[in-house]
């Protein structure tokens, strides 16, 4: 499989205001290298503060790395985004703050398509998208506060796939949902991936969910990649952190 995204030696520091005069720099990412192959679902796992979100912001082109390069189909991120509008999307963890409360479901899903200069009536397309995320088209004229968390997150997914993207970043997209809803959303994501041949970067801290959906799993620990495995080989992890993470999962068996 060809590489869709190549991440080479990425470093990123943030300024940290200290008590004394002068600012100190905190290195969040310390030389991160990995690849995302086309058509795969890559899981990025790590504890809070390990640099997961920073890394996703760099991949999305929302921030520039301090050092190193990120290539998408052999082009730098920002150049690729310009020539491939709407081909990369994101779903965030906090669904309440990533959706405009004054937009109806229809307007929310329409927005990226309008931005891509689709004109005219998009109702049919919206119905198709709502169907894809297993929601009833009757919800079209509802506002976000009239929907449950799982429904809003599905609207966010529908918005993300409305422009037929190649690549979706799911940043803790299911972490704030109930386990039963998580299962539904995971199923949905799996189905969509097969249907639309998309590549996922799935960021999470829940190993069981990652193992359920992803083909390849990358462990990020204190700004460094400590282990990279196919999900079938999880039991063969070598790194100490990855092993203790795997060992500490509280399993659910009957």
């Amino acid at each position, binding site marked *: 499989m060809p590489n869709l995204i190549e991440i080479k030696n990425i470093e990123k520091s943030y300024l940290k205001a200290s008590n004394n005069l002068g600012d100190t720099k905190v290195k969040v990412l310390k030389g991160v290298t990995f690849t995302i192959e086309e058509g795969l679902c890559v899981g990025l796992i790590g504890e*809070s503060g390990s640099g997961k979100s920073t890394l996703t912001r760099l991949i999305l082109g929302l921030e520039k790395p301090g050092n190193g390069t990120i290539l998408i189909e052999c082009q730098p991120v920002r150049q690729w985004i310009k020539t491939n509008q709407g081909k990369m999307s994101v779903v965030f963890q906090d669904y309440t703050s990533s959706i405009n409360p004054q937009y109806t479901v229809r307007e929310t899903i329409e927005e990226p398509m309008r931005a891509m200069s689709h004109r005219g009536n998009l109702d049919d397309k919206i119905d198709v998208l709502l169907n894809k995320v297993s929601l009833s088209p009757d919800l079209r004229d509802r506002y976000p506060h009239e929907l449950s968390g799982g429904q809003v997150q599905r609207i966010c997914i529908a918005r993300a796939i409305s422009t037929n993207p190649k690549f979706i970043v799911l940043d803790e997209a299911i972490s704030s949902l109930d386990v*039963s809803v998580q*299962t539904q959303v995971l199923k949905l994501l799996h189905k969509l991936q097969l249907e639309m041949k998309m590549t996922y970067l799935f960021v999470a*801290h829940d190993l069981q969910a990652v193992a*359920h959906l992803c083909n390849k799993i990358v462990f990020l620990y204190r700004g460094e990649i400590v282990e990279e495995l196919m*999900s079938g080989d999880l*039991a063969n992890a070598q790194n100490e952190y990855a092993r203790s993470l795997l060992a*500490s999962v*509280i399993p659910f068996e009957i």
Partner: protein
Amino acid sequence: MSNLLTVRNLKVTDLREQAEIIHGISFELKKNSCLGIVGESGSGKSMMAKAILGLTNPWLRREGTAKLSSEHSVLDLLQQDESMLRAIRRQRICMILQDAMSAFDPLEKIGSQLSETFIENKGICRSEARSMVLAALQMVNMSEPEQVLKKYSHQLSGGMLQRCMVATALAMKPDIIVADEPTTALDSINQRLVVEEFKQLRQETGTALIFISHDLGVVKHLADQLLVMRCGERVEYGDARSIFKNPQHEYTKYLIDSRLEMSKSFQKTMKRGAVIA
């Protein structure tokens, strides 16, 4: 064993709309045991815990009884006045709130907020309280606890704040800890750690635990009794092991099945790996 807390027919009504939110829930909590409460969000789990502790908004009317027994007396928590409830909440029942971000005062440093609890309730001086806080934070595996004390709540992540709250509750060693989703924001290493701490505390001091969660894995690991809730109603109640093994209600089955599906692939790969190794 005697019942520490007996709740009978607890109802909560919203007086503004005259709508009943909790429809008559009953359960018992024995000494040195753990009651797991599960259900999807909006099922009234947190509302019920808050109602028992008298933390609900004034427009919510509470009915029923919640009897807290001690060696000499029995108190009905729903009938106590505010000052009595406050005394109970600080010494006999501790609550770990779900939303760690809003549970702390944003204008005060974490250190002084944490030591305040100990100074108020144990009558000790500032430096003693400080060393207690440090010990408590070390117990929950906080890295650089000294640094954490100097920070404001917005400078820490949700997981770290949650661990601060767990640490204070554990160090107070109350009769009952009510933990509302204490492990949801934590990664699996820290989740395991907090769960083991709860277990250990129970063994050492006999603290009873009411553990509210939607993660059946953790609940199954901890709970002796299980209460399944949906839309403010008690769907199933009884011995945790037998419910997990043999759920009677459709809804319980659905919760268990969806959870099983989630952990299935993880278990499979880990088992296959174990066989190869």
